[in-house]
């Protein structure tokens, strides 16, 4: 089974900064979008069980290869990075057109996307790609199983889950219920250095004369505001629940709140 995982490098959650133009500063350290890491894990398990390969597809600034290397270290075979200065500020519709055009240059049976991203959060790119490519679209997957010629997905619902089937090729958007992503092994990390990250410009995927990118955004960014400051906040991040509780109690006792 040939699987393409759509993977977006995003600013490390909690470290996001807005640039002077009101857009996210993408020069800060980037990580794999959380949901994408979960669908990558699901993709790796599928090819481990059924054979095949995982290809990563990203649209990002050229320097943003660290998260892609990490995904390759987890076990993806190769990566395709669509990068073009004209893409800065692209809207979700542009992004979908670019990724769909890139997918047309690849061979695949299944496209997996995370349910949404921690930076944009629109959650529409996967469905837009499926529409553009005339593929079935199965959303909110908590389990993905292939069968001859098709894919079966458990889709979470308000009352439990639905079981859906579709013919291949198909686009599936996955949730974190798919299961915890693995840590890249050291062998994987060292092996990832020799794996290919093929970069593609808009011209190379046949979109150079098409209205995509920041200049053609279908939505216009009017204003961006960070949440109002709430004074000093202390976040207790102890992994041991007892220690975390003790820290909170200490905090309250110190202030004579308990």
């Amino acid at each position, binding site marked *: 089974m040939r699987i393409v995982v759509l993977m977006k490098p995003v600013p490390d959650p909690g470290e996001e900064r807005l640039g002077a133009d009101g857009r996210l500063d993408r020069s800060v350290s980037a990580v794999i979008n959380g949901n994408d890491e979960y669908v990558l894990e699901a993709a790796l398990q599928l090819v481990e069980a059924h054979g095949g390969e995982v290809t990563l597809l990203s649209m990002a600034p050229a320097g943003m290869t660290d998260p892609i290397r990490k995904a390759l*270290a987890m076990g993806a075979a190769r990566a395709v990075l669509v990068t073009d200065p004209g893409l800065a500020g692209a809207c979700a519709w542009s992004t979908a057109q670019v990724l769909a055009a890139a997918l047309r240059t690849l061979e695949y049976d299944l496209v997996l996307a995370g349910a949404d991203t921690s930076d944009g959060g629109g959650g529409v790119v996967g469905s837009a790609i499926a529409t553009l490519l005339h593929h079935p679209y199965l959303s909110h997957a908590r389990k993905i199983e292939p069968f001859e010629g098709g894919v079966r997905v458990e889709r979470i619902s308000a009352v439990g889950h639905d079981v859906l089937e579709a013919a291949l090729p198909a686009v599936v958007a996955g949730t974190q219920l798919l299961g915890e992503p693995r*840590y890249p*092994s*050291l062998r994987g*990390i*060292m092996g990832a*250095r020799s794996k290919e990250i093929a970069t593609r410009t808009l011209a190379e995927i046949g979109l150079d004369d098409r209205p995509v990118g920041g200049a053609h955004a279908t939505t216009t960014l009017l204003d961006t505001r960070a949440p109002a400051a709430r004074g000093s906040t202390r976040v207790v991040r102890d992994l041991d629940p007892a220690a975390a509780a*003790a820290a909170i109690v200490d905090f309250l006792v*110190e202030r004579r709140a308990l």
Partner: protein
Amino acid sequence: MTAAPALGRLTDDQRAIRDAVQTLARERVAPRAAEIDRTATFPEDLRLLLAEQGILGLPFPERFGGLGADLLTVCLAIEALSSACATTGLILAVQELGALPLLLAGTEEQLDRFVPGLAAGSDLIAFALTEADAGSDAAAVRTRAVRDGETYLISGTKRFISHGSVASLVTVFAVTDPEADRRRRLSAFVVETTSPGFSVSRLEHKMGIRGSPTAELAFDDVRVPVANRIGAEGDGFGLAMRTLDRSRPGIAAQAVGIAQGALDAAAAYAGQRRQFGKSIGEFQLVQGLLADMDARTEAARQLLYTACDEIERGAPDAGRWSALCKLVAGDAAMAVTTDAVQVFGGYGYLDDFPVERMMRDAKITQLYEGTQQIQRLVIARALLARDA
């Protein structure tokens, strides 16, 4: 959050491996550290994790399934693990120590037989040189290996053997020629711990590294094939010394890791703990403690990394570099962890916080693989030999 050491000198691979091991240390090892210490139980789950992630394969050649990492990379991994849990960092350090005689002098047949299991992490190997009356005076070993046809019969008792009770292989140093010069009396053997006559006669109760089993091993006419002798008869003492030249940086790395873990805990606490209406980190006396801790830790780290590079490039005074970095790092770990307890005040003395454990763990780095006094002897001898 473990502070990132200076990056310029590390390769991309070294940085990537260090970062990956730091992530594991933070997310998987640190939450287990207090329990490992309290229950004094070998963390089999973390051994498996290190095996699965390829960390135990770092020191071994790629052709046997290892990662063929250089000494600095192995030390970066030991440092990262030890910043969360010294017992867990020691799993890798002891695996390297036990295997070094094989890696330095083993035949291709021996490597083929023993190394794949070690690189995969399915087998652990211990290093058995020390005896009750042969500690700093390592050449005073009394365990005998007597040739009997195509085998040797090994008898005697080894003491203070890290992983002695969990390893499937033990590299044992035994006397093959009692009449020879003290540097030619010993030979090294790989002993499988399933061999009849091998037994664990005692487990020590220790002040620190409490999850790491330290065993007394009894050899009661254990029959070992000649094919398991590493190097020639009489090579054992020299091989043990060459092993320690290369393994001591691993202990220095453990020490640097412990120091960094204590510094991170103390700095975080100083920012949170409030007295007299402000965080204690705003008081200059506390700032002075933290700054000195950082300086000592970073100095030890940079010496360790330099020592690794020197040893890896085959410096003629490798033994000196190895002793220098263990001496400085062990003392730094002891001082920094002691100061970390001081920053925590009375709370630091409680096992609710990690720094008292780190202080107990730090002490061993001044004792094993040669006491600090032995390191000074090694350094001084190298200096005097250089000028002779």
